[in-house]
């Protein structure tokens, strides 16, 4: 495997660039040593590795402005990085350049606005950090947590439209951004959302992103290819008195898909996370589980919150009524029980799916992890499950499908996952993910946190006018193509 790609940085001017970077960031925050560059050159996925030329640990906005101006002048690629946990190769430099690491020193929670309910964050803030801060200082407010490890970036996931344990009621994390501060290619700063009032940063005015034209779209999901985010305000919610979870166990794809859609439409659960039954077995210690015919296909976790017992009971009754309808329609049985009770019976290891932020242990089994994570049309979940299952069977990979209802089932998440030994099985997994991608595309799914190879495949089938407009927008936002060049395969 070759790590160096065709870097835009010419070896002869490397020392000049290094001096300038040291001037901007201070010598101790700049490195070009190969052993320091290497961990940034690849991730857990099958995405091709690529070395950066420099890493800089960023401390403040002034440094970002200066480096962007310099890079734009010299046409040097800048790859923003928080923890590199995106599972899509999104921080692997495609053309060398400078990785800007925000995770280590630009990671302050700037402000929590209690009554407007938002958190104003620097890019490096992690889920664990925000969780601890709210728990200790604002226990009446809550944020949301994905199945991602606690040391993953909140801002990183927001600007990538991540999904998490409040997604059934609130949708994608990209929707909950109130405001952004971004450094544009010429080094100017732009504030998107209500924070645009006044030139001085007021931590009190990040309350909403509407009703202006929503320029947020110029930065969300662009994978750092249009500007560098230096501040981000994310919405918080009031914490309700009761937070519990139900666990429902569904047989076959049709029942599971209907369950996800219908329970989502009730608009009473915070989240719906369905995982293949094999995954529960993995969490309980079996790395290569086999599902028995007698076993159900999908356990589904339903985090719920309520103002009081009565409120909670009404919600549970509504869930049960919905289940009865599905049981009747499909002539099936859906076991639904209190999650805590289930965990007490089966083993606490299963709690990793419920007590977030946490580490979903099956995801960290080996040295490789990849997925075809997609936003999916809810009506197509059945064929997606069935046909993806065939790929898992073909490659003899333990079934690992993860699904969610998003925003009351307006859309869904369909994410088949593969864990593997990186230095042994990469080729096999590349083939398997390529096959899974085809199934997903066939049923109208759109891969999120899109790796370059998937983006290239996507380009072959999408509206060419969209692609033209997309490229023009990129050119407008980044005329010298310095921001994470190569992303989205353009």
């Amino acid at each position, binding site marked *: *495997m070759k*790590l160096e790609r065709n870097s835009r940085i010419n070896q002869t001017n490397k020392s000049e660039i290094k001096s300038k970077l040291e001037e901007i960031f201070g010598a101790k*925050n700049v*490195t070009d*040593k*190969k*052993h*320091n560059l*290497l*961990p*940034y050159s690849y*991730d*857990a996925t099958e995405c091709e590795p690529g070395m950066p030329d420099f*890493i800089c*640990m960023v401390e403040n906005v002034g440094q970002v402005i200066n480096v962007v101006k310099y890079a734009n002048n010299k046409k040097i690629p800048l790859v923003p990085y928080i*923890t*590199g*946990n995106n599972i899509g190769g999104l921080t692997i430099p495609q053309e060398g350049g400078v990785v800007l*690491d925000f995770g*280590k*020193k630009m990671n302050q929670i700037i402000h929590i606005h209690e009554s407007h309910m938002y958190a104003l964050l620097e890019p490096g803030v*992690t889920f*664990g*950090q925000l*969780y*601890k801060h709210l728990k200790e200082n604002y226990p009446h407010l809550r944020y949301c947590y994905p199945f991602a*490890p*606690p*040391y*993953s970036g909140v801002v990183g996931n927001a600007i990538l439209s991540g999904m998490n344990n409040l997604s059934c009621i609130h949708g994608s994390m990209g929707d909950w951004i109130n405001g952004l501060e971004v450094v544009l290619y010429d080094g100017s700063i732009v504030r998107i959302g209500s924070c645009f009032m006044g030139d001085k940063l007021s931590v009190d005015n990040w309350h909403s992103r509407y009703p202006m034209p929503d320029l947020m779209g110029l930065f969300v999901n662009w994978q750092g290819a249009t500007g560098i985010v230096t501040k981000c305000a994310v919405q918080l919610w009031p914490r309700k008195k009761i937070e519990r979870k139900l666990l429902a166990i569904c047989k076959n794809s049709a029942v599971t898909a209907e369950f996800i859609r219908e329970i989502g439409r009730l608009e009473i659960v915070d989240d719906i996370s369905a995982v293949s039954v094999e995954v529960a077995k993995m969490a309980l210690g079996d*790395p*290569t589980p086999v599902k028995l015919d007698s076993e159900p296909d999908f356990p589904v976790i339903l985090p719920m919150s309520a103002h009081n017992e009565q409120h909670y009971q009404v919600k549970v009754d509504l869930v049960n009524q919905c289940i009865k309808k599905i049981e009747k329609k499909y002539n099936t049985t859906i076991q639904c029980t209190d999650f805590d009770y289930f965990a007490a019976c089966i083993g606490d290891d299963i709690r*990793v799916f419920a007590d977030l932020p946490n*580490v979903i*242990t099956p*995801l*960290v*089994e*080996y*040295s*490789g*992890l990849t997925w075809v994570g997609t936003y999916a049309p809810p009506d197509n979940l059945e064929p997606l499950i069935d046909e993806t299952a065939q790929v898992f069977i*073909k*490659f*003899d*990979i333990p079934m690992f499908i993860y699904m969610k209802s998003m925003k009351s089932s307006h859309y869904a998440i369909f994410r088949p996952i593969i864990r593997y*030994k*990186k*230095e*042994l*099985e990469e*080729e*096999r997994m590349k*083939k398997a993910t390529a096959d899974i991608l085809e199934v997903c595309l066939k049923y109208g799914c759109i891969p999120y946190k899109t790796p370059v190879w998937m983006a290239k495949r996507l380009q072959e089938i999408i509206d060419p006018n969209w692609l033209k407009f997309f490229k023009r927008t990129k050119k407008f936002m980044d005329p010298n193509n310095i921001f994470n060049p190569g992303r989205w395969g353009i």
Partner: protein
Amino acid sequence: MPTDREEHISEKAKEQVEIKPAKLIDISDLHPYNQESLIVSLDHCIKCNTCKYAFGAFTPSCPSGEEFGWEAYWASGRIRLARALLTGKLEWNDEILHPIFACITCGSCQDQCQAVHNDRIVDVIEALRELAVKRLGAPENQKKMEDRVGKDFNPYGDANSTNEELKKKYNLPNNAKVVYFIGCTSNYRQKNLRNATLSVFNKLGIDFTLVDEHCCGSPLIRTGQTDLIPDLMDHNIRVIKEAGAETVVTSCAGCYRTLKKDFTKFGKDLGVRILHTSEFILPRLSVGMLKEMDKKVITYHDPCHLGHHLGFYDIPRQLINFIPNLEFIEMERIREASWCCGAGGGVKIGYPDLAISTAKKRIHEAEETKAEYLVSTCPFCKRNLSDANKKVGNPLKVIDLVEIVDELL
């Protein structure tokens, strides 16, 4: 911890795609256990970053990563370096030694990592060090430890103490069921701790003896210098056997870990029970034996070799709570979340600034409890925390638990 690389790949899967294991460099000159550890690095760790925080507490956990910042200085970065060196993606040069050796081998990352390989992370780092030593030689300062152990059987370079004088002084027999394995740091540097242990044993009327112990091997194993290890281990096994011991007690956390874990790792069998002083003393105390402590406030620092490495968290706390009339206030980061003292893994000698800055953070944490005593159960922790305490210049008293017990008994 499975190390059979193809064990989970079925024949059916192999029919789909040819399985091509990465070509590895030759590591056959490494100790077999270390070879196995390097293979672990190939097939485990997705770099999920979980080990950067204390799990569940979300407080910083890795002293080396916090100090240097670059990914290569955290556990996952080191695993990646191991992988890259093994697969030939990274060539050797002297600078690689920094991320490899600037790790305290505190094992905090092991407590935080939730993956199946978690108990092998320090093994990987130590194996990587053996590989580095074999290919480039040990860094200069760490090499001194091996030279001194080779010559005088201790890493401090003092003339070897056979412990005969101590035996005479304390009137100890040649044979006894219990051997007190002093450990080099207590025997050559933190002598108060050694003397307190001897005094406590005497006061408790223990039938014990000392042996002509050689370095347990800990500083060399931690720094990948394994050539002398079999001889050191064989010698210690022999003298302990000759003393007729059934139990070996040590007040050094590093020796404790080595005697308990590393002997087996290197295929050696001590064949005796190994106890830390705190666990040896505790059941021998009864109510009324210890004087009161006048409401003094104390806090406890978990030595990594006891805590992160062996999950030994409760007994020292039980012993502290047995002391009458003291106020025991815990620091913010304790037990699995505890922060290292900064001394281990060859860092005290190789990266003294890292050692001191790590210890200073612990001292500040102790100060926040308003404790008068910062207590530990390891001479090396005592030494480094004392050094940092002096630099910070505050009135905290850094002391070992056995010294307190000796004063009160």
